[in-house]
């Protein structure tokens, strides 16, 4: 089964904080209100929560990507 990772476009992110509210399992906010995202892959049990957070982001900064095989050239 495909696993996913959550990431944020830091330029688009405004620090509204909805992601941390909707997906506290993997997102916390720093002292300035910007998300710190757990880099660990998201399993199927959390995928629904992750998708909800991505959809709710008012600046479309949050992304859920299919985990790619790590190659030497990152």
């Amino acid at each position, binding site marked *: 089964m495909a696993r996913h990772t959550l990431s944020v*476009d*830091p*330029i688009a*992110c*405004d*620090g509204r904080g909805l992601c941390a509210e909707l997906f506290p399992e993997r997102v916390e906010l*720093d002292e*300035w209100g*910007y998300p710190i995202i757990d880099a660990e892959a998201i399993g199927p049990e959390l995928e629904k929560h992750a998708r909800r957070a991505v959809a709710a982001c008012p600046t479309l900064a949050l992304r859920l990507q299919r985990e790619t095989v790590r190659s030497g050239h990152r």
Partner: protein
Amino acid sequence: MDDRAAERRLPRLLAGLRSDGMTVSLDMHARRHGRLEPVRDLISLVEQSGLTGRGGGAFPAASKLDAVRSRRGRPVVVVNGAEGEPASGKDKVLLVYAPHLVLDGAVLAARALGARDVIVATASRGAGAAVAAAAAERRDTGISLQRVTVPDRFVAGEETALVQFINGGACLPTLTPPRPFERGVGGAPTLVQNVETLAHVALIARYGPQWFRAVGTPEEPGSTLVTLSGAVQDPGVYEIPLGVSFDELLDEAGGAIAEIQAFLVGGYFGTWIDAADAASARLLDADLAPLRATLGARAIIALPKGACGVAETARVARYLAAESAGQCGPCVHGLAAIADDLSQLVARRAGVDEQRLHRRLGIIPGRGACRHPDGAVRLVRSALDVFAPEFARHFRGGSCTGTGRPVVPMKKER
């Protein structure tokens, strides 16, 4: 002098610069180095030379050329002369005094890639004028040499910032991927290469990879320009073989004028290293890696005893915070908070929480679109390490033992 000794002779890049401080003309350039002849398989020559990028990243120059060549579409070559690093002046020296060496390298790279457009990006008026005058002297068949003046700010030299600016946008970093080699100027695969790196390419094309490797070490071959400042007799730009000692570098500048307590290696984006550690290290990334440093943009600052590393670092941190592109929250707020912490320490104001500073330093790296916040954090962390006794004194509310006179060179504050 036998051939071998001649091959080892320095300077190379700075050879034949005019004592009157005027730009080397195309005629003088051709008399010294010969005319620019077509080169077969430049990328192989560069690969054999082992040349790495001299702008900070130290990425193999041949790999970068190859990455652009492997893409579809006609590439563009951008000469990165932004040199936003305040402690560095080496690229400006090349552009102002020996622009044809740089342009030769750019034209060679363009021909190797099948590019027609070469865009020279500079920040300083002097460099821009010298490049314009040099370009007017040249006839490079099939190549269009263009110039662009970029804002004189720290992040301008970030390659995605340059590309976005040339494409009509702000001179600010963009999210990667895509990197410029994938999608750059006008969407074309783009080689963004540092000024000094291209000057080396011009010499490698003429004298060969073995000549290039006659100085330096097998792993880190060649010569490099270094901008040396701080407590030395003659601060300035020097060409050295990679692998010399810090003492030998100081001798190039007439020696130290005070006992040195530490070096800032790699400029503002660099790492402090203790003078005792520097004494047993050579100017090589291999020797600097255990000290968590790299040569970076090859700007080195010698901090004398009597200066305060905390105060120096606070000033640099303040500058880097102000030079944030202002796009990413963790960089904007995080670097400002760290700069505030350090300023308050220096000003002996209460309320600087040591644990909080460490926590802040821990959560910032990797959370910006570019490496600006990472570099600032690395610098401050190295200061905490190297100037541990001074930091302890400041955290206790002790007074600054520094003389108060800044050592690390600053650009005009904005």
